[in-house]
């Protein structure tokens, strides 16, 4: 949490490195970083809800994919140019998120998770089965970035810089939201919604606003993703994708602001590494998931924290010497 306060120079240095990156590395690395950025938005979206609000939402990937669909449909099928498809994407996702949120916020905890899972599946089902509007399994191909004001975003480096600027501003904005009065209330709701309600806070509406903020981050990721890959298909909306994003959040450390970012960077590089070695990608990811939940539920950042504060092997000993079981 206090990374930014303690180490502003380190952050400045990292940002500088990221800006200069295209001068040092090849096309493939840059593309990987673009992937990190758009999945980073998605992971932030989910991580914000889990870490700050205690809301595990599996609908975020649907928003991510919907943004791509709106752009694909307007741009490719109807030939409408920037900025209308992109703006419409945000508006459409906002309206759908509002609708889902109004229903889902009536429930709590694990039930909320199941309902958001079902909502994600609704969108997936619609995109898969509907051939007249959504093109079914085939999806929409050929989405290309534009040339705007003489800048050609088809160039990988230019696209990377644009995405980086958006990502850094998104991070900064989220940082402000988390540390604002609103963020504090949200944390209060995560800890004890009944008490917050008793104190007079409109718990339902605050959670809904958080949900909408998160949906906008997912949309931003989706917009970048569809321009970068040039294709939008129902596979983007699959449950396995949501679960992968959830993994990145847990991997990094869901209670930390930087958790989703650390998680996504690690997961994407693991992805690159594993895919080149074995076909059993899902198996490896599943086992990784098991190990994290059992051994280090606070993720990579939690592990680093434990090492820094001297409890080097606490997370290991905790597993082999389970605490005396409490009932409930």
């Amino acid at each position, binding site marked *: 949490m206090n990374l930014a306060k303690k180490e502003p120079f380190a952050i400045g240095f990292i940002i500088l490195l990221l800006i200069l990156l295209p001068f040092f590395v090849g096309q493939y690395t840059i593309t990987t970083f673009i992937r990190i950025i758009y999945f980073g938005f998605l992971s932030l979206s989910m991580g914000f809800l*889990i870490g700050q609000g205690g809301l*595990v939402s599996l609908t975020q990937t649907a928003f991510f994919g919907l943004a791509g669909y709106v752009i694909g449909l307007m741009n490719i099928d109807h030939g409408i140019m920037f900025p209308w498809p992109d703006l419409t994407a945000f508006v459409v996702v906002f309206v759908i998120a509002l609708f889902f949120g*109004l*229903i*889902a916020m*009536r*429930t*709590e*905890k*694990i*039930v909320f*998770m*199941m*309902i958001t*899972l*079902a909502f994600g*599946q*609704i969108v997936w*089902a*619609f995109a*898969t*089965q*509907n*051939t*007249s509007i959504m093109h079914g399994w085939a999806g929409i191909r050929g989405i290309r970035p534009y040339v705007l004001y003489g800048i050609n975003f088809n160039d990988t480096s230019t696209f990377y810089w644009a995405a980086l600027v958006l990502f850094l501003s998104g991070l900064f904005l989220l940082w402000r939201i988390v540390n604002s009065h609103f963020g504090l209330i949200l944390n209060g709701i995560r800890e004890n919604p009944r008490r917050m309600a008793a104190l007079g806070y409109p718990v339902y509406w605050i959670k809904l606003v958080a949900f909408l903020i998160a949906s906008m981050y997912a949309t931003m990721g989706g917009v970048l993703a569809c321009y970068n890959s040039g294709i939008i298909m129902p596979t983007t909306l*699959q*449950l*396995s994708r949501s*679960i992968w994003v*959830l993994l990145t959040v*847990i991997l990094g450390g*869901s209670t930390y602001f930087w958790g989703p970012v650390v998680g996504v960077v690690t997961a994407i590089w693991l992805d690159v590494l594993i895919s080149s070695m074995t076909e*059993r990608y*899902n*198996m490896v*990811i*599943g*086992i990784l*998931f*098991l190990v994290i*939940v*059992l051994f280090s*539920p606070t993720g990579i950042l939690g592990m680093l924290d434990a090492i820094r504060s001297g409890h080097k092997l606490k997370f290991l000993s905790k*597993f082999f010497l*389970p605490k005396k*079981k*409490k*009932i*409930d």
Partner: protein
Amino acid sequence: MDIKFVFLILNGLTQAAILFVLGSGLTLAFGLMRVVNLSHGAFYMLGGYIGYSIVKATGNWPLALVAGGLSIALAGFLFERLMLVRVRGGDLPETLLTVALAMIISDLCLVFWARTPITLNVPKYLNPPVTILGVTYPGFRYILMGISIFIALSLWFILYKTKLGAAVRAGVDDRETVSALGVNIQVIYSAVFVISALLAGLAGVLGGSYLQLSPGGDTTILTYSLVVIILGGMGSLLGAVVSSLILGQIMSFGLAFAPQYSYFLIFIPMAIVLAIRPQGLFGRKI
């Protein structure tokens, strides 16, 4: 009435039979343990595949049903004892563990079984054409419905007529008091999780004989079972019965009249019920 509608209703009932076996396991585990087992779909698929292999090797369908169910029950037992017990009480870690298990199982299925959709072969003697009131319908589907009704009755009997069931129902209301009264709640947890896994395995063999088993199908199955228990109310056996009957008909008629939206349609009753009654048709406030 048009004969077509009779067939559609019968198809819907067959579908409902499978949905019930699937959903009742999940709702049972949720009611007591507050664990949403997201590997339920993967359990179903693994059970179905094991049943498929046994039918292929021996041709004995009843054996496949028993073996498919029991092997998944064993898997569930091991998972509960070795993993789930370590993170008991934490909503998120418990759910995440089941997610991880689902990923591993579905990838294992890809390793050992076909990448193309398969269906279990039902022997002829189990599938005679049955004519009731002038309507001829495959007998095996009546057997499916019968098995489902039998399972519903046994679950009802276990829950309401046995000591185990009494402990389970008491545990749903107040775990602490139950354990203070000298009931070993950990054992009850294991028992319920094993029954839940058993039901998923059975559903896999039943469903695999009527529908298809396909790679990646576990998420679809998981969604079906979630919709069943969200609609019916989590932890409610009656809710599972009613919602699977409703959803079975919607799936059957949807497939016939609006194939582009058939999967989409099953979510509509769920959304309506959630908006009016978030705890589901027969659920209690959690």
